[in-house]
């Protein structure tokens, strides 16, 4: 676990520019809203940032392995006494940290927006937990795809795996939230209102985390037999 945390923090450090830009963006939007915010605008902000978080984490996760291979930094890391699954776990852990930072920032912005408009932010915490779980799940899907595909192809495959059920569920397809938790989260995020969450939220969170684990296992099985010193394309 210590190694995974070390690699996770290291991944976060390598992405610091991306994280700073992302935080500046959320802070900027929040500052803009501070001028003359309406209750409805806080909701719109939350919905957009929710979808943005999921896409952002996916696009951060996919090129991670490829970048490490191209830069040859992976050689020294994997020459140490660590397993490949720990390496992938580190990247996933780093993505989870980025998702946490983003969710907390969005949550803080929503609380500030709510306080300015004197509107309660009921259900914000479950919303953020749900968003975090979906982000981790898409990161895991992205990492899995990038273990055997070039980042461009991996982005395509991961987008299909994530976007098709999500768009379908937003359009009213009756898909199982347990089998397609990210689609369910996207549907809930795009329809979010400040109110007490229904009981299904925690099932979706659990399903997303289980799916993240399954994709991570699939990724480790694929990556365990891959040559890391030749490019995958």
């Amino acid at each position, binding site marked *: 676990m*210590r*190694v995974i945390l*070390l*690699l996770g923090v*290291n991944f976060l*450090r*390598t992405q610091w520019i991306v994280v700073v830009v992302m935080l500046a963006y959320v802070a900027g939007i929040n500052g803009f809203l501070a001028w003359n915010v309406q209750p409805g605008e806080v909701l719109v902000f939350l919905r957009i940032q929710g979808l943005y978080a999921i896409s952002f984490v996916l696009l951060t996760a996919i090129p991670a392995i490829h970048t490490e291979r191209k*830069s*040859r*930094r992976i*050689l*020294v*890391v*994997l*020459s*140490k*006494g*660590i*397993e490949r699954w720990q390496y992938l776990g580190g990247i996933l852990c780093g993505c989870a940290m980025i998702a946490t930072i983003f969710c907390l920032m969005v949550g803080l912005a929503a609380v500030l927006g709510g306080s300015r408009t004197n509107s309660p932010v009921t259900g914000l915490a479950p919303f953020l937990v749900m968003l975090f779980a979906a982000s981790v799940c898409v990161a895991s899907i992205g990492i899995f795809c990038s273990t055997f595909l070039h980042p461009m192809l991996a982005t395509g495959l991961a987008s299909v795996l994530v976007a098709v059920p999500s768009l379908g569920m937003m359009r009213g397809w009756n898909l199982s939230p347990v089998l397609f938790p990210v689609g369910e989260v996207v549907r809930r995020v795009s329809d979010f209102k400040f109110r007490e969450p229904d009981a299904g939220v925690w099932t979706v969170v659990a399903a997303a985390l289980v799916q993240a684990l399954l994709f991570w296992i699939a990724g480790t099985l694929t990556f365990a*037999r891959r*040559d*890391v*010193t*030749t490019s995958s*394309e």
Partner: protein
Amino acid sequence: MPPALEFDNISKEYRAVFRRNSVKALNGFSLRVEQGEIFGFLGPNGAGKTTAIHLALGLMFPTQGAGEMLGRPFGHAATRRRVGFLPENVALYRRTAASAARFYGALNGIHGAALRQGVADLFKELDLTAVAGRNSAKFSRGMTQRLGLVQALISNPDLLLLDEPTSALDPLGRIAVRELLVKARAAGKTVFLSSHLLSEIEQICDRIAIVIRGRVARVGTVAELLESQERFVITARGIDALMFEGSQQNGYIRITVPALDQRRTIEQIWLAGGEVIAVNPLRRTLEDLFVELAGQNGAPRA
């Protein structure tokens, strides 16, 4: 005691997904490196040296064959904790030098005071103490290579796999690294050294392998490889150099003869009233041998 490294009939083929052609980097490659020796690994560019090292570390997998490192199959993670690796053109994370060294040490399971002390000692030994707080991304190639050596040595490994460890170092740096490697051997460690610096290899290696086109073309001790048993150098005095087609130096005449003519030539020196001082096998330089083998196998010169 198991060998430090053993490659058993290993082949490695690089196949492109959308292309028909493939490249065989190693082809029936077999080699055994004993524990406690400094082993030089030579070969022209593209001969398969780096591939062999990467296979041993489990960074890639052989198409055919198998191997062992410190008694465990290639790629065994726990065994890698006992191995220090410096890749060619080492790439490290953008951190301060000390932080980077600590990070790589921590990945190998070293923590706390032992890690800090280990980093400080190695920084002192490799003359990095003054730049410990500087971002390693701004380092020169030589300094990056020194830092790469620190990360390879930080876990006090039993086996060091070094791919061109001194290529970017100045002469003083090279001497420091050579001393470090000799010290490691004295402490019972094994050093597997891939380098194009033939003089360096000749100076410190116990045994050498020359790999050409994915196969070991020659392996042996430095003396075995460089001393020819086919030609001898006879050193004599008290004779006319013109009689024997020898070269004269400080009053001594050196005559190079084929092994079959050795006895006859010595008798001729005695008959001419001369004195034989020494008879030695002809010693080539490693460069001569390298060029000869590379030429025989049609490999490009490194």
